[in-house]
């Protein structure tokens, strides 16, 4: 699915978190929103996911206006920075949540739900942890469970907020490859937010550098490296 962001702005009270920004994300791309804190990257991601609504502008999914589509109807697989796993549910129930929450008419049968959860556990290479609770998992395992939970609803796109933010360096590297693999297998349009330029450059097809609510540059990693569009971009990617 391709996503068009058309002159989106966002005001929080008197402060502008996003000045009107426009961005076209081609179908199946792996996009990084890169910038320091306060650059508006997370706000933009949350607007895509339906967790914030823009003050002006439109969001188009496959050319259709989705600006006012409710978060429940968007089918955006969202992975939160804190993972936001449900502590009182097992890993299995966490992943199955999006399916069991559906109204009876569209809810898959129990056996079908179990089959899908098992398949997702295999996909994240943690086949035997279904009965565990989130508190019994390592940070890296939690991140992968959050990813599986987001994939369970058969999302139209994958949105990740600082997906590797809370992990140590070694696990980060492993999981980066894991995300790349999942992206390549599922072919989902994927947008992730990061403040780590190395992560963005290594992982993404397309990098969007943001600062103070504006998009500074959009381009392939190698192009941004070769031709930074502004002093800010040059400083930020050569840290």
């Amino acid at each position, binding site marked *: 699915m391709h996503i068009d962001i058309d002159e989106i702005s966002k005001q929080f009270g008197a402060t502008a978190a996003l000045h009107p920004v426009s961005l076209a994300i081609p179908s199946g791309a792996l996009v990084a929103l890169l910038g320091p804190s306060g650059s508006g990257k997370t706000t933009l991601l949350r607007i895509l996911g339906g967790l914030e609504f823009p003050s002006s502008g439109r969001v188009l999914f496959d050319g259709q206006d989705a600006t006012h589509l409710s*978060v*429940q109807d968007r*089918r955006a697989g*969202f992975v939160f920075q*804190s993972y*936001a796993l449900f502590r009182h549910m097992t890993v299995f129930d966490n992943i199955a949540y999006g399916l069991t*929450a559906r109204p009876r008419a569209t809810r898959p049968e129990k056996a079908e739900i179990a089959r899908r959860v098992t398949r997702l556990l295999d996909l994240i290479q943690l086949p035997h942890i279904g009965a565990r*609770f989130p*508190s019994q998992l390592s940070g890296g395992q939690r991140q992968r469970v959050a990813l599986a939970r987001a994939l369970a609803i058969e999302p139209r796109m994958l949105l990740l907020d600082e997906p590797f933010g809370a992990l140590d360096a070694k696990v980060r590297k492993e999981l980066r490859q894991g995300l790349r693999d999942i992206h390549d297998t599922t072919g989902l349009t994927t947008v992730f937010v990061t403040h780590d330029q190395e992560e963005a450059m290594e992982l993404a097809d397309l990098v969007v550098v943001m600062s103070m609510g504006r998009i500074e540059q959009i381009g392939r990693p190698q192009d941004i490296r070769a031709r930074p569009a502004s002093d800010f971009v040059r400083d930020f990617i050569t840290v």
Partner: protein
Amino acid sequence: MLRTPRPPLIHRSPMPGLGLTMGITITMLSLVVLLPIGALLAKGASFGLGNMWDVVNRERVWAALFLSFRLSFLAACFNLVFGVILAWVLTRYRFPGRRLLDAAVDLPFALPTAVAGIALTALYAPNGAFGALAKELGVKIAYTEWGILIALIFVGLPFVTRTVQPVVEEIDREVEEASATLGASRLHTLRRVIWPMLAPAALTGFALALARAVGEYGSVIFIAGNIPLSTEIAPLLIVIQLEEFNYDAAAAIGIAMLLISFAMLLVINLIQIWSRRRIGHV
């Protein structure tokens, strides 16, 4: 086979004041709490199990215990629902007067029970402001079970709210958002994600309110009719026995109530252990 050595009773520590603070703690705890409770149990032991059973196993005592329990349970149920709503409203919503309401929740903790008792009676007696209104509707509140229920609701009011409030505050908004992004309606999120997080605290508050209500005396005796077999609560029976210098009978009923309190204390602890196991915190 290697035996792991038992840990020492008290670990060595460079901190000063071990002897002094341990001495004060144990001495005062014993003198003020443990020895008096021991005296009650000793009284019961010397009176004998059979005799105690004969005292408790009378219609009037059963009626009082049953009444205390039934109404305390109903009051705690009311406070469970109302307390959770109150905790939610006070932490999640911003509206004028919120701080006043928040402070008011603690009034039942701060107001002496005798004051609460006569104030509620003044309001709900047939010639009181609310009592007169109820009378026109054909309902009598004060001097009936309704009156007792209102008093017990009053004394138990803060427990659920105050145990649930910090938990509501701690809920990670991202968890609620996660539920929404997975397609769940708000109601589904409340039932399946938020309520399970609040439940252990709410149940703890429920048990605390129940325990408090079962033993409550001051706020109830004014508004209850205190009629044997109908509106006489269990603590009042102890007072009546004491006024007749019938210490054995008072001890028998007192021990029965003490056992009930201990059972509830146990339940509260079990709830907390259970919740810690499940979600890694209380």
